[in-house]
């Protein structure tokens, strides 16, 4: 199956702007389903972006981050064609990772 991670990393001069969208329910644990049963909390806890073996951005998330979460940040020092590694792990221990080329 396709990756749950979509990344756009665009370099311009010294700055690389990164946007990511991740497919994840981000269930808060406060919502009930149609049968009135509480949907257990299920959310990404940590999302990490690594460049050149170093973390350039780490997100610690709680269940108040929106479904299919989105984040945008920028970092210095990368150039076009370089790799950016993205990985996440959720509160149930599931995880996914991908490597994106900086454009």
């Amino acid at each position, binding site marked *: 199956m396709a990756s749950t991670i979509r990344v756009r990393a665009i370099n311009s001069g010294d700055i690389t702007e990164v946007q990511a969208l991740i497919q994840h329910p981000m269930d808060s644990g406060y919502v009930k389903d149609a049968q009135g049963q509480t949907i257990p909390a299920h959310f990404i806890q940590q999302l990490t972006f690594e460049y050149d073996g170093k973390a350039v951005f780490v997100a610690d998330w709680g269940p108040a981050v929106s*479904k299919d979460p989105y984040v945008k940040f920028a970092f210095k020092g990368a150039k076009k064609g370089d790799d950016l590694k993205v990985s996440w792990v959720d509160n149930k221990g599931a995880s996914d990772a991908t490597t994106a080329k900086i454009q």
Partner: protein
Amino acid sequence: MAPLDFSPLRRLILKGAGLAALTGLGQIGLGLPAAQAASDKYPEDAFKQKSDADAIKALYGRSADASEQIKLDAPEIAENGGVVPIAVITTLPGVTSISFLVSENPNALAASYVIPEGTVPSVANRLKMAKTSNVIAIVEANGKLYSATREVKVTVGGCGG
């Protein structure tokens, strides 16, 4: 000026180091490699706190002062509480972390970001809001805590079905 990497600071708090142990830590250059951040421990305790003040304390071990150097961008009225775009950018030097809190949510802390050296102190994300609430951005810079607050009105809550 090279900002110090203070991200291990709040991890220490989580490990129960206590406030006393933190005194003076701001002067110690914690020269840990940036890669360390990737294996940082998830601040579980801070996410469990109900109020914004308790969450900030659990995360950083202190309270924050309002700063004009933080620009918190959020809508006046959220079109849907389930997806509220919120962004922050700051001109403060030496930023090591940025966090977002929604005061009226069941658990105030929504997201916390580690900003290693070389990363621009600016983050945009989308958060859930249960109802009309203050949104607080916390910026940790040079070992100090700063904040910016904005009220966002919510007519369709993000905790419904």
